């Protein structure tokens, strides 16, 4: 295990006091330290939002991109340099709303990246509008009479896409969070982890207590490899919310499917001279 303070960064943190994000950040550091991943070996990619500010608060490589667009650059980074450990930290709005299409196809692409969603069921940074995971009917700063859209179930969605690793954790249980983070990062392929994260300012419904009262932990008895059972499990909510690995499946990752990449050097280290392309000119002779 590496020293945790290796990941510390002294930038002022712009999250609100009491925000669930404060528990996710040290969990990540702990997980990285336990996995002995050094700062230069890790890239955290994010979009825009409160959660997406995380790359600024940890001493690893960071790519803080556009709102909703964390998955494509993360995929590009991993494809370019498969030796990097690529992680996404972003919000529910960023990941499931603006970025929905990239999530969907990112899962299908199965690049080996770990996607942590700080799911506060609200748009935090823009001051409290409904996000895809805000409960239908919940009143927000924009949806004054309640959200009309049906609530998105991100785990069910991921299972339907046969996402190779699908889990849920809670910012309120560091130990669980660290262990899920480690499992997710160790898993080969696209891993989606939805992290319940109270927003103390804009979501007065899904509070720490609300989550605390409802979450329970999946135990050994649960088989995360059965896709249909996983789908059924993913539908639980409202009164009892399962935490843990909902679904897991082993299959070749994107890079595994490209033999010369899997077996060879990274794209970044590829040796190539202009003259190496000369052979292709024969197509035009």
């Amino acid at each position: 295990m590496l020293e945790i303070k290796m990941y510390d960064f002294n930038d002022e943190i712009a999250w609100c006091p009491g925000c669930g994000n404060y528990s996710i950040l040290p969990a990540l550091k702990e997980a990285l330290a336990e996995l002995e991943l050094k700062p230069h070996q890790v890239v955290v990619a994010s979009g825009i939002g409160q959660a997406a500010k995380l790359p600024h608060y940890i001493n690893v490589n960071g790519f803080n991109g556009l709102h909703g667009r964390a998955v494509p650059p993360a995929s590009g980074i991993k494809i370019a340099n498969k030796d990097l450990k690529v992680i996404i930290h972003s919000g529910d709005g960023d990941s499931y709303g603006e970025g929905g299409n990239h999530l969907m196809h990112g899962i299908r692409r199965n690049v080996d990246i770990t996607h942590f969603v700080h799911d506060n069921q609200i748009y935090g940074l823009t001051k409290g509008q409904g996000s895809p995971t805000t409960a239908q009917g919940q009143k927000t700063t924009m949806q004054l009479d309640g959200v009309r859209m049906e609530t998105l179930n991100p785990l069910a969605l991921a299972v339907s896409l046969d996402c190779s690793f699908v889990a849920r954790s809670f910012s309120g249980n560091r130990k669980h969070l660290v262990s899920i983070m480690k499992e997710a990062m160790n898993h080969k392929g696209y891993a989606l982890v939805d992290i319940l994260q109270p927003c103390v300012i804009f979501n007065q419904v899904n509070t720490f207590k609300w989550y605390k009262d409802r979450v329970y932990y999946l135990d050994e008895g649960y088989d995360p490899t059965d896709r249909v059972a996983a789908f059924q499990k993913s539908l639980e909510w409202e009164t009892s919310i399962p935490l843990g690995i909902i679904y897991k499946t082993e299959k070749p990752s994107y890079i595994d499917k490209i033999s010369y990449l899997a077996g060879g050097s990274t794209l970044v280290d590829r040796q190539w001279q202009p003259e190496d392309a000369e052979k292709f000119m024969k197509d035009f002779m």
Partner: protein
Amino acid sequence: MLKYNILIGGEAGQGMDTLAVLLEKILKRQGYYVFSNKDYMSRIRGGHNFIQLRFGTETIVSHHPVLDVMIALDQRTIETHIDRLQEKGIIICDDSLQSEDTRVISMALKETAKGIGNIKVFGSIAIGAVMKLFGLTINQVEEVFKEKFDGETSMVNIAAFQKGYELVESYFQIDSPAEDNHILINSNQAIALGALAAGVSFYAGYPMTPATSIMTYLSEKQEDAGIVVEQVEDEISAINMAIGASYAGARAMTGTSGGGFSLMVEALGLAGITETPLVVANIQRPGPATGLPTRTEQSDLSFVLTASHGEIPRMVIAVRNPEDAFYQTARALNLADKYQMLVILLGDQFLSDAMETIEPFDFGRIAINRYLAGKEVVTEDEYIRYQLTENGLSPRIIPGKNEGQIVLVDSDEHNEYGHITEAAEIRSNMMEKRMKRMVYLKKEILEPNYYGVKHPEVLLLGWGSMDGPLKEAIELLQKDGIGAGALAFGDLYPLPTKLLDKYSSSALKIINVEQNYTGQLAKLIRQETGIVCHNSILKYDGRQMSGYEIYLRLKGEVL
């Protein structure tokens, strides 16, 4: 020099493409110069498509409206194009088609093909006939057929060719060519090859006519070149993925046509503010919106000059022909790395499908310059991604290579370390840091091609694919004794102005010749230099002006 012009027309799916590829390759291999262009509809079967193929013993840089030979695979081809057939021209078609025209050589193409054993080879009979009409040898014919088709298929086609060759008499005169030492290539292929030569190792894209063929070519070569070509879910993903790969240190690129480029606009700003090298090719087609998917236009220039909210440095280069496309692509990639910035390449459908015989590319002229920081940066200190320097460029390292150093980039305004800032002074410094590149770029830009007399009275201005047509138009004008010249811009932004100043000073009439409605080059020139065009020759029907058409319109509308 004699140049001949052959049209092959029919429905989508009738195999014109294959016929054209065979014919142009044979002619090229025999040593002729070839120039062909495609006119096709946005459908897979039916409709009316055609290919025009010019050949001769000297360089050809434009298509031409007057036809010498027409291979008509359907009735509509005859009807649509007969007006363009020269008086002594020839139409070759199956005897099932109807025409009273004396220029028709109606042949039992299909029957004969059936006789040979496969009705599909009727086109090869036509090619044989055409070759004979021009009195050409059958040199290279077998080779080309064998490369194109598998064993047995090639034999039947060769037989068909020979049949056609026997069925007619030679008719046209043509000089014998020098030996073949050329390549035959279109600009999209040249962009792809340029990218390969310059070391692109990651290309992300989404299919969109007429840009798709860049990606298809790269995709074909990916294993051989050890690169990755990824078809993504949408163009937003394409550009963001390319930016990610570039941040990570791969030489990355993306390409699309106008509609896809529109979707990439937000991320252009991301490349700008993160100072990530990026080349984006926009192969234009007529807009707005879906427009005319398979046709040509130069109507994205104004757009790409300022595409994306806020202000970023950018360079815009239009490719002018396949040769230009190859070298400019490599140059664009190097400049993107040198200045850690966005370079936009503009092509168009005409160029993407126009095959031209040119000198083989000189790979020795290509250098791969990545401008990554050397070991002076690799210290025990923290790495400062956006260090403020004299020239605005910060030493760039890539993530993962130096223990103890991390690379942080941000789409928000940031301080030297890449951390979000809202400080007014840092913001101003960072804007200036980024925008300074526009000053340095002025030293990099290349002046336009100039064709014509030393002191032109009539100065034509064009860009990109207008290069060849302008050159041909100037030749025609000069034959008429008109003191004309033309500037064909490749680099467009920053705008090179030396030759423009030089030639515009003597010119009595300055005329922009563009394939768009609003005269976008003229607007840019007015904005940057105050020089005003007196007239415009514009076209926006999706069909490329030829040199001859420019010449005619100039004489008709302007001179």
